């Protein structure tokens, strides 16, 4: 029996579009835009000026804040602008524009770090920070912060998240098939930092070939176990993944470290391996380009800073007019209003869908079917949260644990009444958090 958690839902995965397609390189792009906000945490400050010549892998922005990782150029060329640009979040964010000279001159700072056993854990953490590595799954939490848990938390497990439970997404899947050794090498480094002799990689059973490849490759890496996970959304959500593999429940308001676990993404450990093997900091990532409007869906290795328009053009453009462009998966991704937004460190996928947006038009009332209660992975009662929030009763919403919602989207996805509980929940959570900050 594959490991899993209670609740959740099997969702049609649409992965057939791209799961057989090898990772392709993207064609050259003339202008790269690097927003100074790549992930949650403090915004960065540019360390280059307009007119500077920069090389591939050169640091272009940094910050002294702890929860922060520097940013490096993915091309060589001239800084043409540092000004506000459209950002995938929908906001306008100060960004560095670099004109690509197509020479791809590599920065002198890019030196392979070599054998990780030559370094202390502290040195490795510093290397990871300097390489700008963040969680490449969702929020983009800086990896060096994750790997430095408070000393009172004894870490017993490090888990690499190969669940990839969002529909359409196949970037992790392809990475596991194409470079299993990089993943395992990166995991070994993380194990070394945390002083662990065991590491785990959880993979959903709908990726049987990846389980096979990774299991075979893991033979050569002592202490690494591949754990098959039931194919069920949101199996890759941190708390649910930890539950499935360790049977431990991260306490409400708690962090994985509270139960002794650190979770890393497939692309994150690959990036760690890469900096030791080649010295190259994080300047590109795998992006699944998919959806029913995309002519030639595929998995692409996308350098940072490439406008979405250029990425879609590499996938053959659109064969019908998309009604919605999404960065990330369809369950938790962010809808885009412009194709000018550039790829950032958390761009796991780009989807172009023709048939969304009208899904909530035909609203029936909540019929109390209980399906949302049954499937909420946090075991909440979305129907009562929905009701309380729409009646403006935040107190009741808090009693029903609204702050524990992980915004997985299941309740809104399955509601036969086409209620959209998550939309209400999200707004209310914001209000509650702001209120508690003030008081």
């Amino acid at each position: 029996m594959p490991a899993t958690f209670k609740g959740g839902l099997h969702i049609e995965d649409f992965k057939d579009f791209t799961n057989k397609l090898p990772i392709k390189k993207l064609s050259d792009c003339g202008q790269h835009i690097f927003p100074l906000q790549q992930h949650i945490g403090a915004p960065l400050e540019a360390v280059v000026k307009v007119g500077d010549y920069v090389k591939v892998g050169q640091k272009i922005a940094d910050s002294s804040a702890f929860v922060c990782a520097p940013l490096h150029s993915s091309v060589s060329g001239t800084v043409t602008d540092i000004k506000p640009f459209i950002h995938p979040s929908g906001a306008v964010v100060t960004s560095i524009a670099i004109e690509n000279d197509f020479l791809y001159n590599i920065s002198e700072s890019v030196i392979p770090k070599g054998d990780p056993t030559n370094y202390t854990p502290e040195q490795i953490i510093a290397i990871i920070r300097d390489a700008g590595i963040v969680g490449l799954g969702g929020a983009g939490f800086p990896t060096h912060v994750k790997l430095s848990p408070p000393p009172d938390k004894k870490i017993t497990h490090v888990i690499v998240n190969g669940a990839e439970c969002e529909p359409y997404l196949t970037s992790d899947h392809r990475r596991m098939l194409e470079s299993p050794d990089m993943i395992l090498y990166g995991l070994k480094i993380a194990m070394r930092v945390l002083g662990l002799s065991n590491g785990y990689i959880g993979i959903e059973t709908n990726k049987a070939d990846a389980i096979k490849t990774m299991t075979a490759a893991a033979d050569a890496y002592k202490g690494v176990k591949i754990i098959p996970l039931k194919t069920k959304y949101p199996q890759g959500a941190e708390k649910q993944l930890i539950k499935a593999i360790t049977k431990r429940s991260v306490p409400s308001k708690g962090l994985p470290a509270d139960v002794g676990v650190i979770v890393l993404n497939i692309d994150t450990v690959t990036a760690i391996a890469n900096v030791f093997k080649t010295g190259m900091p994080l300047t590109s990532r795998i992006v699944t380009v998919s959806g029913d409007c995309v002519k030639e869906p595929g998995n692409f290795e996308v350098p940072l800073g490439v406008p979405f328009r250029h990425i879609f053009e590499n996938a053959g453009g659109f064969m019908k007019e998309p009604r919605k462009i999404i960065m990330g998966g369809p369950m938790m991704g962010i809808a885009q209003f412009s194709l000018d937004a550039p790829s950032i460190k958390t761009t796991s996928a780009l989807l172009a869908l023709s048939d969304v947006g009208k899904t909530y038009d035909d609203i029936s009332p909540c019929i109390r079917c209980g399906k949302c209660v049954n499937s909420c992975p946090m075991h909440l009662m979305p129907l009562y949260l929905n009701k309380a929030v729409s009646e403006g009763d935040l107190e009741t919403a808090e009693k029903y644990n609204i702050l524990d919602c992980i915004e997985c989207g299941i309740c809104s996805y399955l509601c036969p009444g086409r209620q959209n509980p998550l939309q209400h929940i999200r707004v209310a959570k914001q209000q509650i958090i702001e209120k508690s900050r003030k008081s």
Partner: protein
Amino acid sequence: MQEQKFVVSSSPHIHSEESVSSIMFDVLTALIPASVAGIYFFGYRAAIVLLTAVVSCVAFEAIYQYFMKKRITVNDLSAAVTGLLIGLNMPPSIPLWMVVIGSAFAIVIVKQLYGGLGKNFINPALAARCFMLIAWASAMTTYVTPFMGYGIDAVSSATPLAVLKGVSEGALPSLRNCFFGIKPGSIGETSAVMLSIGFIYLLVRKVIDFKIPAAYIIVFSVLTFMFGKTPYDATYTLYHILTGGLLLGAFFMATDYTTTPTTPLGQIIFGAGCGILTFVIRQFGGYPEGVSFSILLMNVVTPLIDRYTVPKKFGEVAKNVR
């Protein structure tokens, strides 16, 4: 690629195919076997009763919404389901005007006046049946024997439950006949086989969950077997399960979304409560039948059950499990 306007809304960006009308359509489909059985056993009169109930319910909903200037929502099929359930709960010989009034009661008073779909706190079809039992007791409890005709020639006959209880004289049909449906009773409650087929369909389609019906039937059976009129008599217990509205109620009425709990534990409590009440009413009450009243009573306490069975949120119990 020219620039165009994209829809920008919050996640999730996809939705399951399921809707209220698709669910109601599934329920209607699941009730077809039992309806066909009723028509087969009681003839075209049964068909007319079913049709009258469905058409009246849909019409009353549309008329009410039209005059109240609300959006007309009969295409969500919920009124049709209520109608079919009312019809299946009628004796085949019921005068049609009573069916029409019962339907009006269900849709206008029980459903719409409480705010419409999803807001009514008791099951409209059951409320209508109980209202009619009180208003027209004799018409509602005159049952005819299958294949014996309809209209003026109807041969009235005691239901097996009435015979078991000793309130009526008559011969008990064989268990086999009870199982297949050759017995007096309401149109929809005769055939255990046909009801089960519909029930299984709903389970497979994941429209309903097995918890309420299972808890209901198990608790009722155990109580009847141990404390019934003739304790430890399997045949007596089987008669009680197969006759009367137990299966129709447990499968299709006690699983109504709006009027039953939404939590897993609440659903078990609800089913068990129905089982206990049905046993008590059949055993000690004045009526031979107890399913409708039991479910209605449990409907009333459903909000309370929901409130006291809120599931433990993720991470609530297992602090510091190491």
